[in-house]
């Protein structure tokens, strides 16, 4: 699926450049890594923000994800796109934060993960619709929230979401089916 968001942010345009920069960063060129960090800062922060619904937590997670990526860079073998690898790191850190620092060993989209409907957003200045969607997304069970954020807000394909979450395309689709029903039902008064 290619959403307007994906085209707007030019995800695919970065791929070839990323390989060059990642190779140089692995050789110790700090400015190559700085370019990568700059390139993905918005996406890391936005993903964390939409998973956590909290600016400060999202900022912390985005920073930690970027630093963790640098620490693990020597282990990145290019088997996936660099962006996919980064999304996996930031998603894992955000989920750890959501679960109050309890470690998440796997992002496998298990149905028994607890709901996080007790973490309301704090930003009161946004438009009411935006607040309503934020609430509705935050009320989704964590596996559904993750796939909605990655697919509908970050514009990633089912296959990319499956790779990031360590799941399968059918599982991602199944969670999306349920998430969309929940969101549309919750937001029916806001259209």
């Amino acid at each position: 699926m290619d959403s307007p968001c994906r085209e707007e942010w030019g995800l695919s345009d970065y791929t070839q450049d990323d390989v060059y920069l990642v190779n140089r960063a692995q050789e110790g060129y700090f400015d190559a890594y700085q370019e990568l960090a700059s390139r993905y800062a918005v996406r890391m922060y936005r993903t964390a923000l939409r998973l956590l619904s909290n600016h400060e937590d999202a900022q912390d997670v985005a920073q930690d994800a970027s630093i963790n990526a640098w620490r693990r860079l020597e282990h990145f073998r290019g088997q996936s796109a660099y962006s996919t690898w980064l999304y996996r790191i930031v998603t894992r850190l955000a989920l750890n934060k959501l679960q109050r620092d309890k470690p998440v060993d796997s992002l496998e989209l298990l149905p028994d993960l607890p709901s996080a409907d007790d973490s309301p957003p704090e930003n009161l200045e946004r438009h009411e619709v935006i607040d309503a969607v934020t609430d509705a997304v935050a009320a989704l069970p964590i596996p559904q929230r993750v796939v909605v954020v990655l697919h509908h807000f970050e514009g990633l394909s089912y296959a990319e979401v499956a790779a990031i979450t360590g799941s399968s395309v059918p599982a991602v689709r199944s969670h999306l089916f349920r998430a969309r029903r929940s969101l549309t039902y919750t937001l029916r008064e806001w259209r």
Partner: protein
Amino acid sequence: MSEAKSAERSRDILRVLTVACGRSVDQLLEQVADGHADELDSHQADCVHCQAALSELNSLWSPVVEFAKQPVQAPPGLVDNVMDRIYALAQDVWYTLQLSDIGAVKIAARVVGRLARDTARTVPGVRAALGRTSQGRIVQLVEAATRRHRHPHAAVGVLGRTAVVDIAVAVRYGEDVHEVAAEVQQRVIARLRHDVGLQLVNVNVTVDDVVI
């Protein structure tokens, strides 16, 4: 249609698995959510049930579309904070430029690397340049260079006024690669001698890409 009737209709479509023609509500909602509500297949083109459902679901999904369009800016300083922490984590190498009884003036090797990179980018034909200092080589040179005249204020890892800089450059297609590389060396050496005061500067240029 009244709001109450509209809300009731929304609840209805979200309560059923299929519309009257048998098409899956989930798949119609997927079509809408992925931005393909207007791309009707041959069945949908003739099916009033599908068309009504797509229209209704499109309306229901609209708040999410609006949300997704909201621009999000990265917090100011996020990348700077990241790089500061990374630099702190990395073992730094320092060039000592002046030593006296009151202390030492030092410049981080990464500053030298950055100056070299920025200078290399001024050379015509260079499309991208990345600079680094050769840490491993520096450590070896440090021991040799400071063995006989190590100053009390100079910590191990200090290399006086000598720099070894590696620069990777991407050269524009059609340029004379040797000329561009030589110009990079000359400009970087001049810049580091003039701006930083380094005396012995070795600049290794690696042309590792040609871009159009």
